[in-house]
């Protein structure tokens, strides 16, 4: 019935069934079904029905169901078994957006009825999760109205095989992009949509953000973050220690006590997911495996180099690559009007490059906003308005933020700008080892001064005054920061924030007065009285955070003290033991 609904001629269907080996098997197993659907899609798009056509990227087959076009997505045949569904999602999304067809197309994947009933149970949760995202819910609501209940039941992205991972991952990404295009307002929704069905897949924006944070901790992207550094960093996420420990267990695959970039991204992603309420998985999801992450995202770079290298690596065509390629192509599809890439790699590559450029520019501009948003997810309750305003600011400003805005919650203050981060970052690695030693007395000092600066800066929104304020605060801040570089990094670590934008307002100590001066007028212009309140709030938050940090510092120091004592005792014992020996 399903196949008949695809409205293909009967002979084609026969051909398809033959090809997918159903005859051989005697029934439609999951694999066969997937293949069959793929072939249907190919046939519908006019391709000859061949096994090879499966390898291409195909649009989703269209099944004329009772009420709408059911677009069924399924994984690429190469990754049928337990991997991801990508392009289908994306193409679907894209198609829906581009063609501006009825909202039906924006529907989630509908696993065919044949899919094991494992999916229906998981679909409700997925469905719910998806509806988390506003953007998605919008689509959904319209879609829901159109679709009868059975479709909804079949919705979930989780493929029949229960391959919960994968698929939706890229979908969120594309969805984001498309959302941006079509709905300018849905900045925040982007992040929500980045989590809908596939929480374990890292989107581009997220990835970039993670990499940035990695860089802030460890300038060399190819080396490790040591355990203590990572611990401090992740502790800022305010998750409980057992959970953090568990996340570490999951993400440190080689158990070496240090995190490489992929491991770090995985851990970060898990933390973010956890903060948003997703239960931690039992095992590391396939999309977060370091190998996958490494292959999927080769050396991250901030310019087109990334994508160039990416397209170069395309021929390498490993499975993960395929995935990403598909992602890219879907991006490309999104970029241009969706002529479903019925072609093969060559086209993809070229399209990729063009898309990449587009996506890049898009990404870069979106990056601050989206990363802010993604970060805002972390502190949704608090920073909602914050992030939105900051995002708007970012958009208005149209500059590329120096680094992805840190999470909104931890912001201590405008004063704790990224600039300060930049100031300390060079000193951070150097002082990492001596992280604890910096006198705890120092942190309190800057806090009040900074908060003063912050409040000062914030309370004087006027342009004329702001620059002068900024000028004043920046030198002051410069002094303060340099006096206690080590402690700053601790606090600033997780700073993600929309505050980044605001931070740049008051002072850009690190980036130098010149640029600071230029930046100051920009932000100050946009600073409104509403910022004042936020300034106060941030100051409060910052102080609380500083308190927490100090407490932690204290406990760590005490522990160190204990250990040192023990060592001393041991050494003394050894000494005593050796003494009689030497006497002899």
């Amino acid at each position, binding site marked *: 019935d399903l196949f008949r609904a695809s409205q293909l001629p009967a002979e084609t269907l026969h051909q398809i069934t033959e090809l997918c080996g159903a005859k051989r098997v005697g029934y439609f197993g999951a694999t066969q079904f997937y293949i069959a659907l793929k072939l249907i899609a190919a046939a519908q798009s006019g391709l000859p029905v061949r096994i090879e056509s499966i390898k291409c990227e195909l649009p989703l087959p269209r099944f004329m169901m009772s009420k709408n076009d059911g677009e069924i997505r399924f994984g690429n045949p190469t990754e049928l078994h337990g991997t991801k569904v990508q392009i289908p999602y994306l193409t679907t999304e894209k198609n829906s957006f581009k063609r501006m067809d009825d909202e039906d197309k924006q529907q989630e994947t509908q696993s065919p009825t044949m899919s094991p009933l494992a999916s229906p149970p998981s679909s409700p949760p997925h469905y719910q999760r998806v509806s988390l995202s506003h953007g998605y819910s919008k689509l959904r609501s319209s879609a829901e109205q159109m679709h009868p209940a059975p479709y909804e039941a079949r919705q979930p992205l989780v493929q029949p095989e229960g391959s919960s991972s994968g698929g939706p991952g890229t979908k969120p990404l594309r969805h984001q992009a498309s959302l941006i295009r079509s709905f300018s307002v849905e900045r925040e929704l982007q992040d929500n949509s980045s989590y809908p069905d596939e929480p374990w897949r890292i989107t581009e924006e997220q990835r970039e953000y993670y990499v940035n944070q990695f860089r802030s901790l460890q300038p060399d992207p190819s080396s490790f973050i040591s*355990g203590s550094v990572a611990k401090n960093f992740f502790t800022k996420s305010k998750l409980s220690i057992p959970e953090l420990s568990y996340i570490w*267990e999951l993400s440190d695959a080689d*158990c070496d006590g240090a995190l490489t970039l992929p491991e770090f991204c995985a851990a970060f992603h898990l933390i973010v997911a956890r903060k948003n309420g997703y239960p931690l998985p039992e095992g590391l999801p396939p999309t977060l495996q370091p190998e996958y992450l490494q292959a999927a995202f080769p050396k991250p770079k901030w310019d087109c180099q990334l994508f160039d290298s990416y397209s170069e690596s395309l021929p390498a065509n490993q499975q993960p690559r395929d995935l990403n390629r598909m992602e890219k192509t879907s991006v490309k599809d999104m970029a241009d009007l969706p002529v479903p890439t019925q072609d093969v790699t060559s086209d993809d590559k070229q399209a990729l490059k063009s898309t990449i450029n587009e996506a890049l520019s898009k990404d870069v501009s979106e990056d601050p906003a989206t990363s802010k948003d993604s970060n805002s997810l972390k502190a949704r309750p608090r920073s909602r308005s914050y992030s939105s305003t900051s995002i708007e600011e970012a958009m208005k400003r149209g500059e590329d933020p120096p680094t992805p805005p840190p999470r909104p919650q931890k912001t201590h203050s405008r004063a704790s700008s990224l600039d300060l981060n930049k100031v300390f970052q060079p000193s951070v690695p150097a002082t990492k080892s001596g992280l604890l030693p910096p006198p705890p007395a120092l942190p309190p000092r800057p806090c009040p001064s900074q908060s003063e600066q912050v409040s000062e800066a914030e309370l004087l929104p006027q342009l004329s005054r702001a620059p002068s304020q900024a000028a004043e605060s920046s030198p002051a801040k410069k002094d303060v920061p340099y006096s206690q570089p080590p402690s700053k990094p601790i606090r600033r670590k997780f700073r993600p924030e929309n505050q980044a934008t605001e931070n740049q307002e008051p002072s850009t100590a690190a980036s130098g007065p010149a640029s600071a001066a230029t930046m100051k007028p920009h932000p100050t212009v946009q600073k409104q009285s509403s910022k004042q309140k936020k300034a106060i709030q941030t100051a409060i938050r910052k102080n609380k955070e500083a308190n927490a940090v100090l407490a932690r510092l204290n406990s760590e120091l005490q522990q160190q003290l204990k250990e040192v004592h023990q060592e001393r005792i041991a050494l003394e014992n050894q000494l005593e033991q050796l003494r009689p020996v030497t006497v002899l």
Partner: protein
Amino acid sequence: MAVCIAVIAKENYPLYIRSTPTENELRFHYMVHTSLDVVDEKISAMGKALVDQRELYLGLLYPTEDYKVYGYVTNSKVKFVMVVDSSNTALRDNEIRSMFRKLHNSYTDVMCNPFYNPGDRIQSSGSVSLSRAFDNMVTSMMIQVC
């Protein structure tokens, strides 16, 4: 195979102790505790010899009528004690050694976790385990019924 496995810290307090759910769990705890004396004795037996020369695997600490107790100590003076059912005569020394090696490996994995403070109990806390891998490994060792 093992009836009880215990990890004891340098200061001789237990970091982790787990026994198969039979009655008299306390009995195992007591046995482990008394075995600590034997362990200390073996450690100090080196005397003037350097610590490096001491083997990590201590071997059979002492047999009781029902059980045999094996010991293993790490370089940081963390002791692993394993109580094995005596009826399991098939257990050879090498097997015990390999079990201890596995224990040691998963213990170091737990150590590598920066969120684990040395000296903390290795435990499961609520839904999230502080050392799920460690737990699983221990469980696998204990459930292996020959």
